[in-house]
């Protein structure tokens, strides 16, 4: 009887959630199909995908996402490794710092950047396109930090870092060799799931790209939303699908990880 009631309740909650989250999405999807009068069609999608602006901005954001992931990994993996190995009492502080981007709005970062690196400053990074891109990648890395750091740090937890380090060193390996050949492959799943999250963040990011005036996908979506009717709906559905794809991939790699789980000794 009791299990019966709790079951009914959980189904009810699920149903409410589906209605709450799913209904608007369904509405958007339905709307995006009505570009041609009188029939349902994927015309809006065709228009969006064929738009060279779409291709350019999406490609640009894709590139930014990849650069962000590389930069994040290069920054986060050695840091998380080092903190776990040598500065374990610093972990709460480092964790707090990595969480700051969740608390401080991105707009603060951009204004900071613009103040520090404007064309009349000592380091005029906003002066050229490529250096602005660099700045943006730095900003994106900051935004991705909470997710990437947590993922990697959790991945490291299942390893006996100290002993593995000593084992590798006694075999003649340098710290760099160790991180490259042992640590990185062992947290690859964590990095991958962090990377998908980073990807999802960067693709949709608006504030940084708009204020630094770079041709990214976020501002493009905003522009479309302001000027067209059906295409923005199609874009929203595409963005949703991409995000969900990322989530699905995270689930997938995590499940594979569990399947391949390494039962660590002790």
């Amino acid at each position: 009887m009791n299990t019966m009631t709790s079951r009914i309740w959980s189904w009810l909650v699920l149903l409410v959630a589906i209605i709450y989250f799913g209904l608007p999405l369904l509405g958007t999807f339905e709307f995006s199909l009505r570009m041609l009068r009188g029939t349902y069609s994927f015309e809006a999608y065709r228009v969006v995908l064929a738009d060279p602006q779409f291709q350019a901005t999406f490609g640009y954001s894709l590139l930014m996402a990849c650069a962000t992931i590389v930069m994040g990994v290069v920054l986060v993996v050695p840091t998380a490794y080092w903190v776990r190995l040598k500065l374990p009492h610093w972990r709460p502080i480092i964790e707090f710092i990595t969480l700051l981007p969740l608390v401080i709005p991105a707009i603060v970062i951009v204004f900071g950047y613009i103040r520090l690196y404007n064309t009349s400053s000592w380091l005029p990074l906003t002066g050229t396109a490529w250096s602005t891109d660099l700045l943006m990648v730095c900003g994106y890395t900051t935004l991705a930090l909470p997710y990437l750091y947590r993922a990697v740090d959790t991945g490291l937890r299942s390893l006996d870092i100290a002993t593995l380090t000593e084992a590798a060193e006694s075999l003649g390996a340098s710290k760099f060799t160790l991180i490259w050949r042992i640590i990185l492959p062992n947290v690859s799943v964590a990095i991958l799931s962090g990377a998908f999250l980073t990807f999802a963040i960067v693709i949709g990011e608006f504030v940084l790209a708009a204020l630094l005036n770079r041709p990214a996908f976020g501002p493009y979506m905003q522009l479309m939303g302001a000027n067209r009717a059906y295409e923005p709906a199609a874009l929203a559905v595409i963005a949703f699908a991409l995000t969900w794809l990322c989530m699905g991939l995270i689930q997938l790699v995590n499940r594979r990880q569990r399947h391949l789980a390494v039962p660590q000794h002790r």
Partner: protein
Amino acid sequence: MAFLELEHLHKHYATQTVVQDFNLNVEQGEFISFLGPSGCGKTTVLRMIAGFETPSAGQIRIDGHDVVRLKPNQRNIGMVFQSYALFPNLTVAQNIGFGLSVARQPKTQIKQTVQEMLALIKLADLGERYPFQLSGGQQQRVALARALAIQPKVLLLDEPLSALDAKIRVALREDIRAIQRSLGITTIFVTHDQEEALSISDRIVVMNQGHIEQVDTPLAIYNQPSTRFVASFVGALNILNATVSAPEQGMLQIENQTLQLQQPLPHPMGTTIQLALRPEALSLTPKENTDQTLVGQVQQVQFLGSVLRVQLKAGAQNLVLDQFNQPQLIPIQVGQTLKVYFASNQVLLLGAG
């Protein structure tokens, strides 16, 4: 000149002295065990040799070269850990070949060495497996092969068998010893298991609170412990309080029973001294050289398979003896009074207590 020389090693952490004035010379190809209670500094000494800790003072020389300033990855020392520490993302073969590939040896050379090592540890068919697909004993064999593949100058093992089942532990320790002998590699083996140390070492270093108590062969450690700590730490021991009654004749009183040792005692009459007797030195039947006896009352009889362990009380003092289990043995009753025979040269004198 010994192959591995440790001279006046000291190690302090903040206020705590962990290793003090540690001196040891190890010959090439020797198998040395560090034996001692938990926290006595065994691991610390080992880690100083490997380069993971810097000595507060003292010198470490390997093959005549001072290594104190060398980093761990420059010392060419093989290390085996209690927790195996295999690289989980590499196969067995890749694990064994790791040190060689770090040293940029040619691929064919690495492959050949790995094959030799796999054969040496009797896991020739398991090269393609991952560590998590191996049992603990197999993993530790791989760890041993990985350490040996780089042909280290010294092999260091820190309680490599502690995480394994009793049966595998015995088999693997014999394998380790056999491999060590066949390669002639200078080895230091840390353990807190005295049976392990006694059974496989050329020499044992008994440690206590950061210093060396005794360095000697297993036989000498067991039969001629030089300090009270060694005597009581290695092997089971009956410790008896005795009063010197005639020092020149070696006469002692234990609970109103008289013993006569075949040596004069360096203590004045009337002093209380401590004697030690191994359980296996005591017998319930007289033998050739058992010239001494003590009488006691049986408190308990434990059957341990091949051995009967009998606990007796002589007055207020406890006495444990081991008797080989033989079918014709007369059953021993609790409460029975028994005469215990032993040879006077089996008595260890621990000094005034």
